[in-house]
């Protein structure tokens, strides 16, 4: 992500103090435990011009739940901080396509790729065709159709542990569709899905691997120039 943005001429800052948006705790019912994480997040990114997050589920957590959490906390400063920060937050493909108006980042990646639209990107952020447009502009890349693409991969945060059997069953359907697509690589905008899908692709020795969209967009040919 850093390489893509810098290649486009932007300066990227990383604040090592950041920890976590709190989604895992919030979604598992530990909403109280998520509050300090929200507070910390808002503090760390207080005056950032643009906040780029390469994870649609984190962005969804912040957009869908931070306002509610802040309101429930009764802390007026928190409410203001949320209101102030939200408009500056972008998921990675939103940043590229909407904010920077770019679909071609000059990437070269001569492989076949199936795109798994993670649930948060599909239904919460409604990213639509942004990821596909970015991939379609990558030279050498073949974007392959994925059947039943909108089905959840079965990760669901702690669901993957608490309901491991069902999670694995859902994953097996996703893997079957991915293998049927014939693609070399499964891409997505969420590392959580990728860790899950990749975990099965690896365990089953399928010969297919996973990559985050950003990794693909950062690919150049050996000379580092555009093809």
């Amino acid at each position, binding site marked *: 992500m850093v390489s893509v943005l810098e290649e486009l001429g932007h300066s990227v800052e990383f604040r090592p103090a950041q920890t976590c948006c709190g989604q895992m705790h919030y979604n598992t019912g530990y909403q109280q435990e998520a509050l300090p994480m929200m507070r910390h997040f808002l503090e760390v990114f207080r005056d950032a011009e643009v906040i780029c997050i390469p994870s649609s589920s984190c962005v969804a957590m912040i957009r869908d739940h931070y306002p509610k959490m802040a309101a429930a906390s009764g802390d007026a400063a928190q409410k203001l901080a949320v209101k102030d920060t939200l408009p500056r937050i972008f998921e990675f493909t939103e940043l590229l396509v909407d904010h920077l108006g770019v679909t071609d980042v000059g990437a070269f990646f001569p492989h076949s790729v199936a795109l798994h639209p993670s649930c948060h990107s599909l239904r919460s952020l409604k990213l639509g065709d942004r990821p596909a447009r970015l991939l379609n502009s990558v030279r050498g890349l073949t974007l392959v159709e994925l059947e039943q693409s909108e089905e959840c991969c079965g990760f669901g945060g702690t669901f993957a542990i608490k309901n491991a*059997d069902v999670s694995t069953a859902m994953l097996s359907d996703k893997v079957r569709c991915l293998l049927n697509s014939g693609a070399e690589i499964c891409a997505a905008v969420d590392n959580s899905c990728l860790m899950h899908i990749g975990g099965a692709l690896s365990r089953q020795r399928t010969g297919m691997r996973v990559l985050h969209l950003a990794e693909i967009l950062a690919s150049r040919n050996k000379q580092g120039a555009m093809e």
Partner: protein
Amino acid sequence: MSSYVGDAAKAPKFQTAAKALVQNTQLRHNVKRATGVIRNKRAKVVDEMPDWEQLRDSGHEIKQHVMRHLDFYLEQFETNCKAAGGTVHWARDADEANSIIVGLVKAQQAKEVIKVKTMTSDEVRLNGALENAGITPYETDLADLIVQLGEDKPSHIVVPALHRNRMEIRQIFLDKMNLSELGDQPEDLAAAARNYLREKFLRVPVAISGANFAVADTGSVCVVESEGNGRMCVSLPRVLISLVGIEKIIPSFQDLEVFLQTLPRSATGERMNPYNSIWTGVTPDDGPQEFHVVLLDNGRTKVLADREARETLDCIRCGACLNACPVYRQTGGHAYGSMYGGPIGAILTPQLQSMEHSQTLPYASSLCGACYEVCPVKINIPEILVHLRGKVVERGDAPFEEKMAMKAAAWTLESPEHLEMARKLGRIAQRPFVDKGVISHLPFGLDAWTRTRDLPAMPAESFREWWLKREKETGV
């Protein structure tokens, strides 16, 4: 007085039930196939509607409105139903509903009743109460008949025998209907059901139904169906008893224009289901001459009191969320231990039971949101699931190991120093388990993930370290 939902209080944890069901290949095949068929049908008739989203919005708002004024509308319904010759009873909980209904049947000296379209009767365990009183109930919905004869449990809100294929159904009919032979085509099975039930429709003097909608401004009741047994039950017997959850009320007859469009398209993928029966009170010379409505609470007022979960009561029982749910597709309805299964079941069943049982149901979801997308009244099921999970934790009902793990994780994620410490520790702790960058086995109880999936090892250099190194090198 306590509310219960069938036998859900005794049902095994979702994870336990699911584990067995996921290994039942016939079931998974049946469920996957059936839900696939309905989903496609639904998509087709929904895509036809340019005003589908507007219908959803209105459906949502109408239901929300009713919940805000439920006392008024219940009283209005009662007044209008009574004025038309009906009798309205109120039941605080399941036992009271059963006692009222058994009393009404006994007053007729009837030994048999025919039943149609009432999951609510399963909720209150009506059949058991009737049988204890020496009264035989006959289910007349084909799927409920299959379930009753098969001594089974329903697995779907709209298609309760979805988990059975035709061969299994044929065997059940052969055994229980005393048939010497029976074809195996769906037409043969439907014909067998027709013969078996017809003489009952024409003879049994008391029917018990549910209601899809109870209209406040006219006092009417509406039953939505496909087979014709609904029409049979609500218009042939001498006495009709309708068990109606208090959330079934809609304000005005005109409001049917929304729900009669969204319900059939969502439930069975049809523009309109074959039959809707709408009646008000008693009509001289036509149909039952005695009509009773039993309004049921059984925990619904408790759901009403929870502002964040109140919209659970908006449900019109279309079943679309079950068909869309990737979890339901893998397990079928029995995993939920309740006649209300799938996404809506995961939020309704625990709440009706005051969260005392079914704590695992709110976790039976990956929060993918497919249910919310298809709900015709826009119930934000994922949001309510997370809210109920909060209640489970708040009540202290979360498993001990989980609580400890979440506490440790919260400590780790609260500050960058803690996170750094955990990262360093993790890198050391993982070493015995890493092979070529992959962890395929974790010890003790930590293997829920690694039983079926590999885990990437922590990278040799974290992003953080790479960044800080680069900063130092470039002086930026």
